């Protein structure tokens, strides 16, 4: 069953066609990776799914329901979580608070109740905390729990970014260049986590990535994009040998 289906996606920015009729589907439970040179339109796809942009044409369906023009803040509640290429953590807050915010779609209390800190609010806080602690355990972030993001090194921030998306307990996880800026060891950790997320947590993962070893290690299927159009789609081995893909990447 296709969890996510994109049909004929098209969007332009100031005269440049960023996406020009892109189709793809992501099956439930798989790890699907999008590759392509810079400017190919990969993050734009994510931004369409997150509803940061409106597409000019095409549609996106998630779990059978159309989300093409849904209000941006409703996407998380449907079960979609994402990380950002340049890390969009809440700098002044602690790791814990960043992750706690991911539980926001589970908020069942209103302003007045929260001002009074009613028992219902307290129970909700503890429930959220328990969910978040599971992610902290999984990613081994306990040591940094109360540290402010501004004081953390880049590698740890990448992990927190991942943790924040996981804390939402999504059905679909969007990872935008999870290995960028990471060294070999950190990238290996990332690969392990992605595999764990798929098999242990049962989450479908959609990745944008440049590191071909990571792509080959974790992906079930790969989509190659160039200049806003689909070049090829298949399993990692096929894509790596695809002549069009090689031409796009190496310009030969």
């Amino acid at each position, binding site marked *: 069953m296709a969890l996510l289906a994109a049909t004929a996606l098209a969007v332009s920015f100031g005269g440049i066609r960023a996406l020009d009729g892109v189709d793809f589907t992501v099956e439930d439970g798989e790890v699907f990776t999008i590759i392509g040179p810079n400017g190919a339109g990969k993050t734009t796809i994510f931004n369409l799914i*997150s509803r*940061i942009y409106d597409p000019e044409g095409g549609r996106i369906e998630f779990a059978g329901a159309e989300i093409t023009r849904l*209000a*941006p*803040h*409703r*996407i*998380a*509640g449907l079960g979609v*979580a*994402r990380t*950002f290429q340049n890390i*969009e*953590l*809440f*700098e*002044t*807050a602690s790791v814990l*608070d960043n992750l*706690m*915010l*991911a*539980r*926001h*779609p589970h*908020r069942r*209390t209103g*302003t007045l109740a*929260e*001002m*009074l*800190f009613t028992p219902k*609010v*307290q129970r*909700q*806080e*503890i429930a*959220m*905390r*328990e969910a978040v*602690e599971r992610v902290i355990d999984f990613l081994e972030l306990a040591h940094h729990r109360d540290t402010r993001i*501004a004081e953390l090194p880049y590698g740890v921030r990448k992990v927190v970014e991942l943790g*924040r998306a996981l804390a*939402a307990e999504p059905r679909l996880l969007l990872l935008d260049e999870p290995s960028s800026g990471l060294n070999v060891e950190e990238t290996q950790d990332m690969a392990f986590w992605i595999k764990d997320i798929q098999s242990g947590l049962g989450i479908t993962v959609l990745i944008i990535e440049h590191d071909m070893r990571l792509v080959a290690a974790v992906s079930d299927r790969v989509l190659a994009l160039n200049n806003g159009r689909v070049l090829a789609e298949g399993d990692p081995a096929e894509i790596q040998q695809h002549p069009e893909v090689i031409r796009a990447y190496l310009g030969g």
Partner: protein
Amino acid sequence: MKTSYAHDLRLFRHRGDVVWYGALGLILLAAPLLTDDYGLAQLSFVCIYAIAGVGLMLLSGFTGLISLGHAAFLAAGAYTTAILEQQGLDFAIALPAAALVAGLLGVMVGLPALRLSGIYLTIATLAFAFIVEEVLTRWKGLTGGNAGMLLDDASLLGLAIDSEPRFYYLALGLLVLTMLAGINILRAPLGRAMIAVRDSETAAQAMGVNLAMVKTTAFGLSAALTGIAGALYAHKLTYISPEQFTIFVSIEFLLIVIIGGLGSLHGAVFGAIFVIVLPQLVLIARELLPAAIAGLPGLEAAAFGLALILFILFEPMGLYGMWAKLRHYGRTFPVYKKATFRRTKSFLKGEGG
């Protein structure tokens, strides 16, 4: 030692805090025994400014929406109180009404402000406040215009608040309730959502935060609290006119939250203390300075301007920041690291921050 998540939620997380706050509470309760009417009046003003400070802190400090027009909400609270009490209503009705009217005004400002960001929002609040000030001046039938309005002592459910100690307890009680409300919000989803909106709207939205709801709520709440301050303010002065709600008052409020320490509730109290104490210091300075300088008007404003500049240059985390550093120093001595509080700088245009 922490043994449960519930422990983390508690108001006082360190046992030492209970002792400190307990002692502070006792001193505050005993204030009428420790000082005279003048001192109590000053303390009352601190409470009033601190309540408004908490209101502005929630909006500007925590949600990141800078308002240069909060005097308008103070006025809304003050005038609502004066008008209702003129009709013979009790303060117990006038106070919530003041909060409601100011809160609604806040929502009214917040809604169109959703489309504005950064400096545009701030200038819009400034424009809004100017317009409100003018409306108060021209709508003579309702507000008495420039002639202003007089207020009698507040009557709280029949009890006359006709002495400094009584007023002080009223103001103090309301401040404590305000602080509790603020603290509660900050340890609940709404507070986290506010900070998220401030730090990264994009990420906040992607995680399910309804920006419009949070921003409007922040405006409404902030305005309502300032309205409560306004109700008290009206009674403390016993006479209100549009001249008391100018842009200088709005700037004074911003001064409170900045010098106090943007991003901390305690900062609102520290800032309020500063704003009330500084003119007293200037008074003392006047007596020590040669007559030529001492007689000059505008020394207070100059002191405020200078203080603002100096704090931003040398102590951007404000008074609360200084306090936090001191406390951290005390707790981590002798392994204290000076760089712990150094702020990251961003140099590229449009990088925000």
